[in-house]
C-alpha cells in the first residue's frame, strides 16, 4: 500500500475519532476556549464531524409556539398564524421558536419575526409577538382527566417607525 493510502487510513481514523469525541459533547468537557478546540470546531464544521446527536434526548421538552397579533392605524386587530407553502416549513419555523426560548436570543429573534409579519401585512402599524408553551400531561395525568395546556411565556410589542413602502 503506498504511503498516500496509508495517510488516507490515518485521516479516516482521525475523522472518526473527532466524530466520536463531539458525539460525547467533547466541546462541553472543560475549557474549550483555546486554539486547539477552536481549530477542531472549525474543521468539524466543514467536515461534519463536530455534531452532537441529541435528537429527542434525554427527553422531549415542552413545545414553544408564537402567536402574532397585529393592529392597523384604525385600531383593528388581527391574529396571524405564520405558515409556509412547503411541508417542511413548520419544522423549520419551530426550530426558530426553539431558539426563542433562550433569553439571550429573544429580543433580536422576536424583532426579526415581527419585522417579517409587518412586511407581510403592510397596513399593520403595531405587532405583539407572544410566545406560549404547550404543556403535555403525562399518561397518568391524562388518565386522571388533565389535558393539554398552553402556558404564556413572554410577549414583546413592536411599532412600525416608518410607513411601509408597499
Amino acid at each position, binding site marked *: *500500500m503506498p504511503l498516500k*493510502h496509508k495517510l*488516507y*487510513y490515518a485521516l*479516516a481514523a482521525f*475523522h*472518526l475519532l473527532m*466524530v*466520536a469525541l463531539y*458525539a*460525547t459533547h467533547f466541546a462541553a468537557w472543560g475549557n474549550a476556549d483555546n486554539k486547539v478546540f477552536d481549530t477542531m*470546531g*472549525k474543521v468539524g*464544521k*466543514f*467536515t*461534519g464531524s463536530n*455534531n*452532537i*446527536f*441529541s*435528537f*429527542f*434526548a*434525554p*427527553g*422531549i421538552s415542552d*413545545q414553544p*409556539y408564537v402567536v402574532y397579533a397585529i393592529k392597523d392605524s384604525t385600531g383593528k386587530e388581527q391574529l396571524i398564524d405564520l405558515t*409556509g*407553502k*412547503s*411541508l*417542511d*416549513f*413548520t*419544522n*423549520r*419555523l*419551530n*426550530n*426558530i421558536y426553539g*431558539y426563542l426560548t433562550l433569553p439571550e*436570543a429573544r429580543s*433580536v*429573534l422576536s424583532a*426579526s*419575526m415581527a*419585522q*417579517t409579519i409587518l*412586511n407581510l401585512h403592510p397596513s399593520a402599524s403595531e405587532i405583539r409577538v407572544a410566545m406560549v408553551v*404547550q404543556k*403535555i400531561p*403525562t*399518561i397518568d395525568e*391524562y*388518565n386522571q382527566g388533565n389535558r*393539554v395546556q398552553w402556558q404564556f411565556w413572554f410577549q414583546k410589542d413592536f411599532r412600525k417607525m416608518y410607513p411601509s413602502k408597499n
Partner: protein
Amino acid sequence: MKKIFTHIASFFYAPVPKEMLGIFRVLVSGFALLQLLVLLPDWGWLYGPKGLIPWEISDALSTNGAPSLRTVSSVFGLSQNITVYIITTIYFLSLGGLFIGYKTRYMAAVAWLMHLIINTTGNLTAYGVETFTHIALFYCMVLPVGVSLSLDARKKICRVPGYLITLSVRVIQLHLCIMYLACGIEKAMGEQWWNGEAIWIAMQQDQFHHFNINWMAHFTLIPKLLCWGTLLLETFYPVAIFFSKTKRLWLAGIISMHLFIAVFLGLHLFGLLMMLLNISAFGLPYYGASIKTILKRCKLSIQYIKAFTVIKRKSALYP
C-alpha cells in the same frame, strides 16, 4: 489476539461491492435534489435577505465563521437577491451532476460548498436533516463515490484499489454507528424513554400531532415498548448491524423506526434521509441477494406473461 487483528484487518481491507458507493451517491444527491424542490416554495423565507431571519442577524448568530450568502454577496459585489438565485442554481446543477456522476468529485465539492453557504445563512432554521445532508455531501466529495453507477465510471477504468472502497464504506458505516450509539445512550439517560412518556409527549405535541393517539393512555405498554424498542435499536446498532444473525433484522428495524418518524412525526425529509443513508450503507450486502432474486423472479414472470400473451394471440388468429 491474533484472531482479533485478523478480524479488524478483514473489516477494513476485505473487498466490498463498489456499487455501494455509487448507490450512496445517487441516493444522497437524489435526496438533496428532492429536498431543494420541496423547500423551493419557501426558499425566500428560509434563505432570502428579507426572510424569516435577516442575513445580518443570522450571520451574527452563526458561530463558526463559515461562508454565508451575505459573504458571497459582499465578496463578489452582487445584489442580495441575485446571490440567492446564483447560489441556488449552482447548487441545483451540481447536485444534478453528482446524481448522474459527471465529473463527480468536482460536482460533489461544489454541492457541498453551496450547501454549506446556504445553511450558514439558514442556520437557525436548519435541523437534523441539514446536519446529515452536509455530512453525506462531504463524504461524496472526499470518497470515491463516482466509481460505480456514474458517467465517469463508463468513461474510464476504475483505478481505485479495493481496500480504499472498503475504507470509504466503513467510514460511512462507522459514522452511523457512532451517531446511533450516542443517540441511544443520551436517550437512555432520560426517564421519559424508560416510562414511555417520550413517544406519548412527542406525538401529543402540536408540531408532531398528525394522528390521534389518546387511546395509548389506556394501553401504556405500547408507548413503553416503542420507547424501549428505540433504545434497543439505537444503542446496540453498532454491534447488531454487523453481527450475522441480527444484521438484517436490525437494518429492517432501524428503517422502520425512521419510517415511523417520517409518517407519524411529520419529519418526512429527516426520516427519508436516514432511511436512505442506512440503505446505502448496509442495504446492498444484506439484502442485495434477496433483491436480485426478486428481480430475477419479476423478469421471469414478465417473460411468462409475454409468452402467454403471444400464445393467446396466435391461438386467436388460428382458431
